[in-house]
């Protein structure tokens, strides 16, 4: 196996283009090394992106934030402006694994690992995040929701990798929240996850909403019906009940060692309601 640690995106693209075998991208490594250890991944080469310029920085752009692909959850949580704008995305990324994992794990890695239960992905989808991808044909932007195509599968082409995640600017009275259900209080994979992002007007009426669910389908799903249930309402009880029902209806999970169809379907609605209430409070609703 070979280890590459290029210092520019261009060099990284070249290295990737030159690979004949299986080359994996290493950001935080908290999924890749587990897969290698268990024999599920036996790469011929590893490309470590952490030494590439910009991969470890959070920068302001068009009022939003560009988060480098190697920025860890802990680094995000230490960025006060990012936390103020996108608390749900930050808390979702911060839920990935233990303190030890949070110091390494990244949103981009979580996205490209393409687990339907990835914690940061529902929050990113709800946020309308956009991934920037570099590859042999240059750089392109693609909505985060379009990257995973199934468990462990992505839409990235040969030689492509995610270089950053862009979180857009936030108007006033807008916020987000992410909740997941796990059997313990830490250290588990989400049995269900839900990200909710909302914008309120001055009267507290929801003008915009986006809701996404994790671990209830082969990929993280956005639930437009859930958003519809919120828009135009003050996020009152009937609206929250409609949100809850829409999320349960949109869930099409499987039963496995972590949860049953019935459980995931029900809890998707429970979490959506709870996350919406948190987002509403954060958005400054009275």
């Amino acid at each position, binding site marked *: 196996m070979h280890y590459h640690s290029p210092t520019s995106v261009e060099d990284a693209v070249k290295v990737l283009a030159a690979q004949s075998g299986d080359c994996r991208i290493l950001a935080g490594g908290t999924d890749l090394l587990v897969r290698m250890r*268990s024999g599920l991944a036996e790469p011929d080469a590893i490309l470590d992106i952490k030494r590439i310029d910009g991969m470890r920085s959070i920068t302001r752009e068009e009022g939003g934030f560009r988060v480098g692909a190697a920025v860890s959850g802990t680094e995000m949580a230490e960025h006060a402006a990012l936390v103020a704008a996108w608390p749900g995305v930050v808390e979702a990324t911060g839920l990935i694994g233990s303190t030890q994992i949070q110091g390494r794990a990244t949103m981009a890695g979580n996205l490209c690992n393409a687990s339907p239960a990835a914690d940061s992905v529902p929050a990113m989808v709800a946020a309308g995040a956009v991934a920037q991808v570099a590859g042999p044909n240059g750089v392109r932007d693609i909505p985060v929701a379009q990257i995973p195509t199934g468990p462990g599968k992505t839409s990235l082409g040969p030689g492509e990798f995610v270089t950053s995640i862009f979180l857009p600017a936030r108007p006033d009275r807008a916020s987000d929240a992410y909740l997941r*259900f796990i*059997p*313990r*209080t*830490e*250290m*588990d*994979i989400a*049995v269900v996850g839900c990200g909710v992002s909302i914008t309120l007007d001055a009267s507290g009426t929801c003008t915009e909403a986006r809701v996404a669910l994790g671990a209830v389908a082969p990929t993280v799903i956005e639930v437009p019906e859930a958003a519809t249930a919120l828009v135009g309402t003050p996020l009152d009880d009937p609206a929250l009940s409609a949100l809850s029902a829409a999320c349960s209806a949109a869930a099409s999970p499987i039963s496995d*060692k*972590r*949860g*049953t169809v*019935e*459980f995931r379907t*029900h*809890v998707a609605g*429970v979490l959506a309601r709870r996350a919406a209430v948190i987002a509403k409070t954060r958005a400054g609703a009275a």
Partner: protein
Amino acid sequence: MALDSKSELREFKIVGTRPLRPDGIDKVTGKARFGADITAPGMLVGLVLRSPHAHARIVSIDTSRAEAVPGVHAVVTRADFAEPGEDVADILDNCMAGAKALYDGHAVAAIAASSGKIARDALKLIDVVYEVLPHVTDVDAAMKPGAPVLHEGRTDETVPEGLSPNVISRHEFGHGDIEAGLAQADRIVERTFQTEATHQGYIEPHACLAQMGPDGQADLWCCTQGHYMARNVCAEILGLEQGQLRVTASEIGGGFGGKTTVFLEPVALMLARKSGRPVKMVMTRSEVLRATGPTASSSIDVKIGMTKDGRITAGFAELRYQGGAYPGSPVDMGSMSAFAPYDLEHVKTIGWDVVTNRPKQAAYRAPGAPMAAFAVESAIDELARGFGLDPLEVRLKNAAREGTRASYGPTYPAIGLEATLRTAKDHPHWSAPLGENQGRGVACGFWFNFGGDTCVTLNITPDGTVTVSEGNPDIGGSRASMSMMAAEELGIPYEKVRTIVADTGSLGQNEVTDGSRVTFAVGLATIEAARAAIREMCKRAAMVWGIEPEAVEWVDGAAQPAGPNAGEHPPMTLAEIAAIASNTGGPIAGHHEANPEGAGVSFATHMVDTEVDPDTGAVKILRYTVFQDAGKAIHPAYVEGQFQGGAVQGIGWALNEEYIYGEDGVLQNAGFLDYRVPVASDLPMIDTVILEIPNPGHPYGVRGVGETSIVPPLAAVANAVSAASGVRMTSLPISPPKLLAALHER
């Protein structure tokens, strides 16, 4: 050896205090050497190839491609081992499969190579042809006629006709007439309970290092609860003389019963024999979960009758435990312990030992008892609550006391159950207010405790310090406890005594560290060894003074003339006697070898508050208090630690830990990600109350404390969940999907 008659009046100077442990600094600085930390010059790395099938005939194994790989020095299969004696046949078969692979993860071959990478790659070149067979992993399914059969001809004479050959034995305990007792009841609860297998979950995977010379001398270093056991078993399997195999126990990173047998050790020795090089083997976590001892899973029918004032009129339980691929589930102990806390006129338990296509169960802290207590204590709770009675009062009303004939036969001497119940009732926890969706549960637990073969040698050094050699790996602070008892007896400071765990060449036979036996049995032997040394020191002083040895007594670390000679000579301290030992007859030591009876049973009552999230089925542990009789707590901090650790393992068993098998019989959660042991944020502080009802069988009154603490929590948590949510959970773990489904069904 009985309780010292003066013990209750005795003012201990060291026993009951909390000195620092002798292995503390090594363990906080990373210097302590555990199983995987041992190396030898020129050592090879040994790895095991494991069956991917739950049940398969091994048609052939071709190792030639692997053997041809440069860097591979030995490949071992079952064919390398001689036909084993009957007493080790199952152990060997578990370490290296013979005709059949009996569970997912069963070892079928092993390799020793010059690096881990070479060994890993070469492992893939061993060609095993399997004929996959139907499998069974559920205990009730395995008992039925027509179930896939693991072994023919292992059923013993206790089993009636008509059951599957997977049913190995039937056990029955009790007295009285169940039907007559039930007829006196105002209400009868009859329910079936299930518990899933849980793993001991020690953080240190199994590891060993073996070397063997052509002269038949061999050395083995391993993490084990019993290196004497490892020696005896490996010697028999390898055809070595026990005296030629020297086993040294490393520091042990947790065991809880799971390291009371061998897995890698005979294989490592065989690889060392074939390669002529030292061979080190370390399991991965996945191997630990797939191939080492979880506990049994169980299915238990309970029928208990109670009068409306809370008297239990009859108790019946039928227990079915699967203990994995070989006979020997702890169903006998489950059956004996199920009703042990109660004074019952009519009681009967029947236990069935069943084999299935799962790894052979290994002992896990009070083996067999927690599941039985879950069933019985849940049913008692349901009856008590049904009558609107205080569940502690009900237990007090039926509690076993001194003179009670135990459900499993013997009559109890002084025991502490009643004291734990009364203390619990008076504790502020019992009367603390509860909020919405919160509930409180209690349950009792029992464990037998044990003595076993024990040797201790205590040496007086020329400068008047003391070394104690014992043969039991220190799993929770026992070296400190032995030093304390030796210092107490000798009348010298704790710091003057250093206790070590000696290798198998240094002492006679020692039973493994199990059965909560060490503080009791090794402690007893340490006290006796100290007394032997004291007798010798008194003799030396008598010689110097020219008086009879019987006229010398030992007081506060010194010999002094007694009786008519009292005051004639100034006391001679231990150090003074040690300094002249060479001139008064040579070095001074005391030793003691015994298989002590009188371990003294132990009881506990646990109290727990839970909160149930009615929308998700999540259970939160809010508060937990352990009340347990320790007989006499030598080092109270370590006693508390045993109480707390057992309680939390029980909480894990109750809520989230389980072996999950797929339809294919393959373990689905062979890692700490989905085998969910409790993490720090899952828990509150675990409060403890140590009660001291002296054990009549130990000079200081010590009872073992390690195991009882895991017995009550399964039922205590389930009872608290029932109180909080209104649903009675009869199947463990009470995982959120299961509880939510029960809440929705209601």
